[in-house]
């Protein structure tokens, strides 16, 4: 990637200690909107900067530091509230991580990457192939199982009941003393009530069969998505009892600004980012880096 320059750095160079002018605010607005931050969030952010401007003469550097701090805080709040800076399975008990989300966002790929991290960090892992709907979904998961050397529990028969696969997988995880069970679910749009009900059913099975397990219900969010991302977060939070978010496809040109709204309105911590299709292209989420990239012009 050629010359990606931090917007903030760029601005600072241009402005020096000159006050934050209305023109700069306009540039900022463009930047935030183009990053999919959304109109409301952008208005709010700019409003608070304007207020600051009216109260005192703000130097550019000070104003931008203030802005960055605010943005980082939005993302950090749910992380702090969760009590865990970094998400990782706990040793000595069963952890169940279920990946949910709309179609094509990267659930299965992320699951493969997570299986790989788990193995590399010394956890035993197992995969439940609970997408029984998509054509060749099971074959796709199995490729990831082979790549990571993780066992896949599946039922190849067409339209098998996903909840029953999760049932089987929890049984197998218990008997083999598995640390981390990863559950792949079919993509579903949040407006499909019957499919959202199916998720509730899966959650019920998990809670019933493994009441002591550490359950993470993670929404996979495609960073190229726009404002619909927030609706997804709110709906899945309801049906799948979400505990966090994974942002994918950040290797693209999208900034994933909708994550800001998801963090502030759905109060969900972002846990990992996906930045590529390869097995190693997964990283823990870092708010500072994310905001720095968000405020970067191509």
């Amino acid at each position, binding site marked *: 990637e050629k010359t990606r320059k931090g917007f903030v750095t760029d601005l600072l160079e241009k402005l020096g200690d000159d006050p934050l002018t209305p023109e700069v605010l306009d540039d900022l607005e463009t930047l935030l909107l183009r990053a999919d931050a*959304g109109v409301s969030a952008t208005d709010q952010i700019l409003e608070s900067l304007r207020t600051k401007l009216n109260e005192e003469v703000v130097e550019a550097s000070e104003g931008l530091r203030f802005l960055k701090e605010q943005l980082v805080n939005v993302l950090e709040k749910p992380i702090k509230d969760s009590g865990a800076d970094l998400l990782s399975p706990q040793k000595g008990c069963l952890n169940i991580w279920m990946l949910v989300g709309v179609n*094509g966002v990267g659930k299965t790929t992320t699951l493969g990457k997570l299986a790989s991290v788990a193995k590399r960090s010394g956890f035993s892992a197992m995969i439940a192939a609970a997408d029984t709907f998509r054509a060749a979904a099971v074959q796709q998961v199995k490729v990831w199982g082979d790549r990571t050397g993780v066992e896949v529990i599946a039922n190849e028969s067409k339209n098998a009941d996903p909840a029953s696969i999760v049932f089987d997988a929890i049984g197998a995880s218990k008997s083999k003393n598995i640390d981390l069970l990863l559950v792949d679910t079919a993509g579903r*749009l949040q407006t499909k009530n019957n499919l959202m009900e199916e998720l509730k059913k899966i959650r019920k099975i998990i809670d019933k069969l493994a009441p002591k397990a550490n359950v993470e219900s993670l929404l996979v969010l495609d960073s190229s998505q726009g404002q*619909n*991302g927030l609706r997804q977060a709110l709906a899945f939070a309801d049906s799948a009892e979400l505990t966090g978010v994974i942002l994918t496809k950040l290797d*693209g040109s999208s900034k994933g600004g909708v994550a800001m709204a998801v963090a502030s309105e759905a109060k969900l911590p972002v846990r990992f980012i996906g930045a590529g299709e390869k097995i190693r292209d997964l990283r823990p989420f870092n708010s500072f880096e994310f905001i720095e990239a968000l405020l970067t012009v191509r």
Partner: protein
Amino acid sequence: MFEELTNQFEDAVKAFKGEAKISEENVDEALKQVRRALLDADVSLSVVKEFIDEVRVKAVGTEVVRGIDPGQKFIQVVHEELVNVMGGENDPLANSEEQPTVILMAGLQGAGKTTATAKLGLLLKEKNKKPLLVAADTYRPAAIDQLVTLGKQIDVEVFNLSSNLKPEEIAKKGLEKAKNEGFDTVLVDTAGRLQIDTDMMGEMVRIKEAVQPDEVLLVVDSMIGQEAADITRSFHEKVGITGAVLTKLDGDSRGGAALSIRKISGKPIKFIGTGEKVEALQPFYPERMASRILGMGDVLTLVEKA
């Protein structure tokens, strides 16, 4: 219909309260509301700006007939302009005189290319055509299996080779087979790629050169955000598209990408995807899309489905 839209745009309509016509002075506040609605619908910012400027010119000086208030008239102008930009009537799929017609699918990862390939295959089959699906995604795990499975579902033949071959070679061999065996349409499914991935975009160009398609369809997820503009521009400049398919419109995304795609490439959106099943493909109707983008919901499409 405009009443419903007028409700949506209550603030915009209020801007004209008590005034008899749309003027330079009173149009600004209303345009602000439209800008907001378009951004909420994920229309790309540059496209929003252009569109607003055009609407301003059209709206100011519009004769307002007695009995209709300027607010309603304004919404009507906005809606009409949206429909105009998105292309008026529905555009059909290319049908070349020299058979087979070759259709190439392109787009980002997970947009819905493979599904759309099968959907188009079914559509053609139902029109008594003889399509061949070509599996030229050698990257994604089980991509070939996916197309083969879908091919079985719709009872249309799928051409596939080992994933060790280059996609352009597979595409070319698929085309040869079609010519030899009398298939009248070839649909080439390709791997998802980012528009900023130079190698993968280069590969797309090679696939195109290998099969000389009559149609290059950019498949775009309707939930996409601001990058719709850049994606369209890049795919159009580097590969050259002839149209687009907008997918996953069975959800509640507003689908502002439709406006961005059309405005930036000048190419029509030909179909919309409205479900995961192979039957869930419909022609694109600008009128309905305009209402949807403005927040009226896709009422008509839903009615048609029921």
